[in-house]
């Protein structure tokens, strides 16, 4: 762990717009505090670029506390960088050493086209959600506690699936650019709860169909998504989605 300030070399993907071919560009950053987050280091670099009259690097970010799912950098060959279970905004420069060269790329997938530099269009995820990731009931006022009894293990599993922030790291790291971890989490969080039952088999068919239509690849169970997910979403969700999908297609009378 470094204590003094660091000098680093960055290799960053620059791409003007969706049409541009894009290329890797080298940048030097100096006097970086190890306590800075990775995004703050990029802020420093961008200040530098603006002062010099260059175009700053465009990157997605919002809450900067690991819950919004906006930040999306592929750092040194891994989504959200070298640490497990953190987003890029929670990655600190103390995870790197003085003099390091860091490669920073956008998420790469046909379904996530680059808009500019490190920002990609993740609206494919929104369309998957719009295809069925909801429940069509008026929720009304808050119910009495325990009105709908849900076993603790079930509630926990639903909560763990619901922790997905939709950042797209699973797609980014998957060798097939498959979105199955994301889609299965969004299906599971509803399939595990009583409120999700009426549309359960319709939902899985529609969301899988939309996922395929968006051009994501096919899952081959390498497990890279689970290993890289900043929220620790489990492969058990994909197995559950598979089961629900088979039930929907081969047993249920619900059409997608």
């Amino acid at each position, binding site marked *: 762990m470094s204590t003094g300030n660091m000098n680093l070399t960055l290799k960053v993907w620059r791409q003007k717009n969706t049409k541009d071919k894009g290329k890797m560009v080298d940048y030097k950053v100096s006097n970086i505090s190890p306590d800075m987050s990775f995004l703050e280091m990029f802020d420093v670099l961008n200040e530098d670029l603006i002062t010099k009259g260059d175009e700053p690097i465009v990157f997605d970010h919002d809450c900067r506390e690991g819950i919004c799912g906006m930040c999306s950098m592929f750092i040194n060959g*891994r989504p959200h960088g070298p640490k497990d279970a953190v987003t890029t905004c929670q990655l600190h420069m103390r995870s790197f050493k003085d003099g390091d060269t860091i490669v920073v790329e956008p998420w790469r997938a046909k379904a996530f086209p680059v808009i500019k530099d490190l920002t990609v269009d993740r609206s494919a995820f929104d369309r998957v959600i719009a295809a069925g990731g909801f429940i069509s009931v008026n929720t009304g006022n808050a119910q009495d506690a325990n009105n709908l009894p849900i076993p603790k293990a079930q509630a926990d599993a639903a909560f763990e699936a619901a922790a997905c922030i939709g950042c797209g790291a699973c797609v980014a790291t998957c*060798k097939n650019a498959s979105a199955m971890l994301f889609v299965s989490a969004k299906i599971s969080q509803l399939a595990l709860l009583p409120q999700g039952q009426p549309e359960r088999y319709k939902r899985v068919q529609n969301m899988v169909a939309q996922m395929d239509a968006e051009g994501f690849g096919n899952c*081959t*169970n390498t497990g890279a998504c689970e290993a890289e997910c900043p929220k620790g979403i489990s492969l058990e969700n994909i197995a559950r989605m598979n089961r629900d999908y088979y039930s929907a297609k081969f047993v249920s009378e619900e059409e997608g």
Partner: protein
Amino acid sequence: MGSIANAFSSSIGKKLIMGLTGLFLISFLVVHCFLNSFVFFDNTGVLFNEGAHFMATNWIIRAMEVVLMAGLLLHIVQGARLTFQNQAARPVKYAYNDGNANSKWYSRSMGLLGTLLLIFLIVHLAQFWTVSRFTGIPTVDANGHEDLYAVMKGTFSNIWFVVLYVLAMISLAYHLLHGFASTFQTLGWNHKKYTPIIKSLGVWFSILIPLIFAAMPIWIYLGL
């Protein structure tokens, strides 16, 4: 309607076909390995030829051979399609991707391992299957059965074929190391109670079956 038809063309359906045909091919490996292991127990080849004769004349086995070929073909065609589709899902590759940080190389190389196995299978079928089914085996053994064992001895007197078979079995081991456990995940059988059992069973299967197969050409080459 038509939901069952389009079920198999979806991403999950395509996985299901790979998993089911894979599981079927695994069951074939068990039978094939069991019968071939007769070579270890009788170096006159009579026992082995007995097994081969049973396989060649039993009508259930003959019917299953057609199913096996269909299953194998489906596994190959579907595997190739998936590989190309999955490559197309990432048109621009990463300049630097640290795959080993989050997954096993053999899990990411199923297409390559499968291609190596296909090359081996073409050689293997040409050497034994076409001979026993079509072109005919020239000699008979003491029991009057076609002497497939003699064909095997002839083939494995060449060290390069022994090397090829051993290398192919290493490919098979890695292919199974991913494929065995992966099949159950695809079928939706993932649970903390039994997934660890499936995984360790998969590791044992992936080592044991290819090891027994690889031992056969070596055994025969050494004249044991």
